[in-house]
């Protein structure tokens, strides 16, 4: 797994990764970069201070919050805030988020992969036109389409259901998925497809038995990127759902903030709880996630 994550373009670019890996160490051996280091540490502080503040405040009780120094850790840390959040249907919102994310990302990957395969391997007006539609789609600000989407979802009697969030999420994940997947698929050597073709393989089989394994890092990248987007999505839930039964995590933070506006530590505990699952995944799969995202956008 680790070797493939380092080489997202493994099929085609064999000499390249060697050079990319060698250079940083060479540079590193020259004089240390003091200015860069200083800037790096300053930015690190900017990143950390808010995170630190959120975590320590979430462990304070109300009295401690009002009396103690905001930047000092609590004298008597308490998990009561977390208990309060968990009792407020956190599990339900978490499940809703999970359903919407998986329900959007998996179908989006499936259809985008087929489209990318057709665009890269196929010819003809229709496919190049399709590709242009998706490229144009990257430039469309999603927010502009929410009113007609709201109308469509209401007319289809899907308002306030999880499906109402899944369907547009699939559509908006498609352009970027097709772009990244097709960029990667162009690197799969043509000879491999031709030899499979001569063995009598159909396109359907080539797609799943050759193109998919060869572009696996890209598929994972696209999956992660879309999952992050859908998981953190706020606008569709705000407009297309209403009741607590269909509430997803980002929206629950917002409503919780409204309900418990006087209890800041509890609100911040809900922020920590909503972030924790992603943080655990990140720490475990950091290499895959970062190298995938890097490769996906700098190609």
């Amino acid at each position, binding site marked *: 797994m680790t070797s493939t994550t380092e080489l997202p373009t493994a099929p085609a670019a064999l000499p390249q990764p060697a050079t990319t890996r060698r250079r940083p160490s060479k540079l590193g051996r020259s004089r240390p970069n003091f200015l860069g280091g200083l800037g790096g540490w300053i930015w690190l502080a900017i990143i950390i201070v808010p995170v630190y503040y959120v975590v320590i405040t979430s462990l304070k009780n109300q009295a401690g919050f009002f009396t103690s120094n905001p930047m000092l850790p609590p004298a008597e840390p308490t998990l009561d805030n977390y208990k309060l959040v968990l009792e407020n249907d956190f599990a339900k919102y978490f499940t809703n988020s999970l359903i919407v994310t998986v329900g959007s990302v998996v179908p989006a990957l499936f259809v985008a992969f087929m489209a990318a395969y057709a665009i890269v391997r196929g010819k003809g007006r229709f496919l190049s036109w399709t590709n242009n539609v998706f490229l144009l789609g990257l430039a469309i600000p999603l927010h502009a389409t929410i*009113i007609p989407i709201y109308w469509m979802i209401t007319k289809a009697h899907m308002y306030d259901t999880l499906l109402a969030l899944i369907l547009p999420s699939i559509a908006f994940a498609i352009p970027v998925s097709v772009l990244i997947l097709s960029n990667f698929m162009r690197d799969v050597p043509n000879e491999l497809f031709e030899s499979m073709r001569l063995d009598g393989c159909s*396109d359907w089989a080539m797609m799943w038995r050759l193109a998919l394994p060869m572009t696996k890092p890209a598929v994972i990248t696209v999956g992660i990127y879309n999952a992050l987007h859908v998981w953190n999505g706020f606008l569709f839930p705000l407009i297309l759902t209403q009741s607590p039964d269909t509430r997803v995590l980002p929206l629950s933070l917002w409503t919780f903030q409204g309900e418990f506006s006087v209890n800041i530590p509890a609100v911040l505990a809900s922020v920590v709880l909503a972030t924790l699952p992603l943080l655990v995944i990140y*720490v475990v799969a950091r290499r895959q996630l970062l190298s995938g995202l890097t490769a996906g956008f700098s190609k």
Partner: protein
Amino acid sequence: MSTATTTPRRELGTGRTAGTRRTLEKGPSGWLAVPALAFFMLFAILPLLGVLFLSFTSWDGLGEIRLDGLSSWNTVLADPVTGNALLVTAKIMFFSFIVQAPISLLLGVFTAASQKYRAALAVLYFVPLLLSSAAVAIAFKALLDPNFGLGPGLGLPFLAQDWLGNSDLVLFVVVFVIAWQFVPFHTLIYQGGVRQIPASLYEAAQIDGAGRIQQFFNITLPQLKYTMITSSTLMVVGSLAYFDLIFVLTAGGPGYSTRLLPLHMYLTGFKANDMGAASALGVILVVIGLALALFLQRLGGKNRNASQLEGA
């Protein structure tokens, strides 16, 4: 699905040499692209036409939709809040670009080279990528509280002001929070770009005796041209999508000082129940987004995406 597997095979079998050639050239069926295209047409292209149509109607979001000519457009264009929203959008776009672009470029170059504590840095640098805008906004709202936030905590009086209640300051606070959340993403893009620069260029420069700063300006920057265009396009077009963050952080206030165009559209449509006017604002949003994206791609000249976009 079964037809897709059988047809090419039959074609292969019929015409020995000529048939094989033709199947190889023809490639897979365009039908494979249809599901993705259908989804995208239904939930993006169709709504795009829909928003244009709705801008000529009046609708409160619940009742009947009535054709109403140009009245929504007249409302929107005569409303000073629209002009203000455009100005706020432009300001946020400009300042957040000015702040984010250099920081993420430098951090990207810095993190692409090896340095001590790399693993620890990499874990922490990119944490904001994981947070939802709602979470970031709530965290900063608490942090910037004049009584219980960062200012009194550090004992620095100038930090203890009402950041979000001061209409002169709030825009810059918003820009800062945007940078906090999105710089890590663009750093990552630059990091990938830097790692693709051939090492031989730096080796040659070192032999010629070029220093680090010369290398940065003569090799790194020119080589990152397309990375800069990608990142800038995402930054500029993406600044129309800071909706969530600003909605939760300031709700557009105080007054109208952070009510940018997407937020103005949302409030007009779903709070003031004027979907016609909101649709007209949506059309303006689309036009601006497309114009900016095309402009930036042109600026980059002939890269792969530009040539394809030009054909569209």
